[in-house]
């Protein structure tokens, strides 16, 4: 399923909404999650999962082609942990 298919499903269920509003609604939800993580916040959606930010320490990396050492700065990366209910559903438990 891709973003446009998700939007279409929501639009089909809500015939009283304009398609363009459904697009804004869906986009707002995803943008809000990104903005929260950009501030360093977590987004916890019970049953679905939680988005959080993990810190990666600075390290000495290596250019795999030349073998040269390079300093890699500390950075923050997005992380998603699947919620229990969804994990169970994937395995046909509920």
């Amino acid at each position, binding site marked *: 399923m891709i973003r446009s298919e*998700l939007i279409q499903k929501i639009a089909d269920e809500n015939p009283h909404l304009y398609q363009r509003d459904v697009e804004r609604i869906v986009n707002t*939800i995803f943008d809000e999650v990104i903005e929260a993580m*950009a*501030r360093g916040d*977590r987004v916890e959606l019970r049953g679905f999962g939680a988005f959080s930010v993990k810190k990666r320490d600075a390290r000495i990396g290596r250019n795999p082609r030349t073998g040269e050492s390079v300093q890699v700065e500390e950075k923050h990366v997005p992380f998603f942990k699947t919620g229990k209910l969804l994990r169970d559903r994937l395995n046909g438990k509920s």
Partner: protein
Amino acid sequence: MTKTLTRMDLSEAVFREVGLSRNESAQLVESVLNHMSDALADGESVKISSFGTFSVRDKAARVGRNPKTGQEVPILPRRVLTFRPSHLMKDRVADGNKG
């Protein structure tokens, strides 16, 4: 200080952005999560451009070990969900948390 957002914060954002009732905004957030969960439970991947891709992977059975007792326990084959963030998400998270 790290804050934790919930469904409430997402529906509040929808409420501010589109001007539907709070109740309807909350229902729409729920429908989005439900449609995504349904697709994933069917084994489909969910690709949200400029956000990321959720995909379902099959894990083979293996012998695990209880780290406390050292006892061997069989781990059955199972399906797990992986999330691969988009470049946009990675860049915004990296930039926003710099320094």
